[in-house]
């Protein structure tokens, strides 16, 4: 079973809207795909069944003191069943949240913001930004990498989970996180790098910069490339599941750089789909297929398909910018949150 774009172009798919009274900052489906969670601007984490036909439970108490800034699916399965999440807050706490909403503290860095998280499913490792340090939680142990010359703006795992890449001023750093400590490798490019994603095949690390462009390093060759021409900062990057495409936000349509074969040098990006109202704020490629989800600053939500170069509107504009997107592990459900605190769940298979 897979989503059918033609179907969605005729009518909006089934959707559930839950209203929270604080901005949504991040969302994710659990590893087992049963639960969906949204992190919110009032410190709450809203858990709900992934199935859009089911009623969500009432809001729980805040877990973070200020804003719950970041959230990912817990990469470790729960042996008792019911996989959970990991969240970070501007209270400096990194929390593991079980499927029943119980929180345990993994790290506490008072005065720092835990604003970016990454997870590696096969090794169960979690990486978190905390000021100038990157934290890695693995096998019940918290290790710190840094300090970097400036705050860690984003981070991600390599394909095999043996390394993390961090984004900061004037480039990226790659840390080996195995038990044998290797010196970090630095890849330089002037300016402030604000978003980072390691390609799903492990070959490339892409960043979005303060200067409205993106930068991509070929890790093995230590060569790099720069793509310009965006009207705004590219804060959202997403590699397709097969690593052939790098999707980027900050354009009015889906924008994908081709990384198959010789790579994107000298080629324009593939741009497709219906022009959305405004600029894309968040983009998320399906973890299993050629579909991609784009959220706009107008509130519009589109589903795109790179193969057919077409798209369908999943949710109309409502003037509240989309702040977060997520795919269920099977690629059949999506979630989106906005600045108003509207939390959407959409079933793509019908």
């Amino acid at each position, binding site marked *: 079973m897979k989503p059918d774009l033609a179907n969605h172009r005729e009518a909006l798919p089934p959707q559930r809207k839950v209203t929270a009274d604080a901005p949504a900052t991040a969302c994710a489906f659990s590893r087992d795909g049963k639960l969906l969670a949204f992190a919110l601007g*009032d410190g709450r984490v809203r858990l709900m069944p992934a199935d859009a036909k089911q009623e969500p439970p009432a809001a729980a108490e805040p877990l973070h003191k200020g804003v719950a*800034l970041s959230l990912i699916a817990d990469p470790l399965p729960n042996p008792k069943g019911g996989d959970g999440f990991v969240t970070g807050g501007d209270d400096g706490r990194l929390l593991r949240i079980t499927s029943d909403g119980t929180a345990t503290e993994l790290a506490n860095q008072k005065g720092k913001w835990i604003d970016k998280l990454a997870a590696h499913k096969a090794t169960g490792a979690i990486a978190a930004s905390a000021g100038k340090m990157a934290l890695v939680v693995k096998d019940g142990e918290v290790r710190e990498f840094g300090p970097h010359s400036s*705050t860690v703006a984003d981070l991600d795992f390599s394909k095999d989970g043996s390394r993390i890449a961090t984004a900061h001023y004037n480039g990226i750093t790659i840390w080996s996180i195995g038990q044998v400590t290797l010196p970090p490798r630095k890849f330089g490019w002037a300016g402030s790098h604000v978003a980072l994603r390691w390609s799903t095949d492990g070959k490339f690390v892409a960043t979005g910069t*303060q200067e409205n462009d993106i930068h991509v390093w070929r890790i093995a060759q230590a060569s790099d490339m720069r793509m310009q021409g965006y009207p705004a900062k590219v804060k959202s990057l997403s590699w397709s599941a097969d690593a052939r495409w790098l999707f980027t936000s900050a354009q009015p349509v889906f924008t994908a750089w081709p990384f198959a074969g010789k790579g994107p040098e000298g080629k324009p990006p593939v741009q497709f789909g219906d022009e959305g109202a405004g600029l894309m704020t968040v983009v998320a490629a399906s973890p299993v297929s050629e579909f991609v989800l784009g959220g706009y600053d107008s509130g519009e939500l589109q589903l795109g398909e790179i193969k057919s170069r077409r798209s369908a509107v999943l949710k109309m504009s409502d003037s509240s910018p989309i702040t977060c997107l997520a795919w269920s592990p099977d690629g059949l459900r999506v979630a989106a949150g906005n600045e108003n605190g509207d939390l959407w769940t959409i079933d793509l298979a019908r």
Partner: protein
Amino acid sequence: MAQEQVPVTVLTGYLGAGKTTLLNRILSEQHGKKYAVIVNEFGELGVDNDLVINADEEVFEMNNGCICCTVRGDLIRIIEGLMKRKDKFDGILVETTGLADPGPVAQTFFTDDDVKARTRLDAIVTVVDAKHFFSQLGQGEEAEEQVAFADVILLNKTDLVGEDDLGKVEAKIKAINPYARIHRTQKSKIELDAILDKGAFDLARILEFEPDFLKPGHEHNLDEVASLSISTDKPVDPDKFQKWMGALLQIKGPDIFRSKGILAIDGAPRRYVYQGVHMMMDSDWGTPWKDGEKRSSKLVFIGRNLDGEQLRRGFEACLK
């Protein structure tokens, strides 16, 4: 989405001038307002408040080849984070360390689109230590530059100096920056209305105010920070002005700490107001001209090595 822009006050001043005292007062007094305070040293403030945020003064150079185009990336991130909060603020205060150039902080609010959409730079407030100002002037350029950047100056610790000396300090401040409002204070005690959400970049004061020592014939050492103003009653050509000012700030940006102006654009019903910090500038339409009102334009520069004759000729070439 139409959003209220949160006013941002940049607080600067030499070490020990009284910034921390002022921040403690703002955080502890009952004023019914909610402020987020971004500081450098967590420990210095005696108040435990989750709206106090520690920043690291992380300055980076914009990747566009301009040496004075430096920005505080940490502030961009913090402001984005603050805007995710459920509770909104009446204002944001940004403290800079005593020795830091306030330029990058101010420039951050001109540079980043997200920050610009959510906040507006309200005023740069400089706290001056009345007792130690002259000795601080001798210790480097910071004390002088902090005064040059200011929209509002708290002349603090006035109880520690005599009236004569106070007059001398005030005269020196006015020589550097005659356009800032000066409030004399003791222990940083001041009505918050006087420094917060002032719309100090409401530039009306510039037009109404003409410091007397800037009359022709005034001489000063070019190395010293000084100010300069140019006025005209002729309408301004907006395209020529943009081009000239853009080029001027590119070249002279490092020397020009502040530039401000109110312009009568040919045929426009409203005032055109602009302000710059180093090479960054921002402009907007201001209040409408009244019927029969004299439409005059004025530019103000505060900086080093200002060549008045060259600036005047450049501006005159932008007139109709």
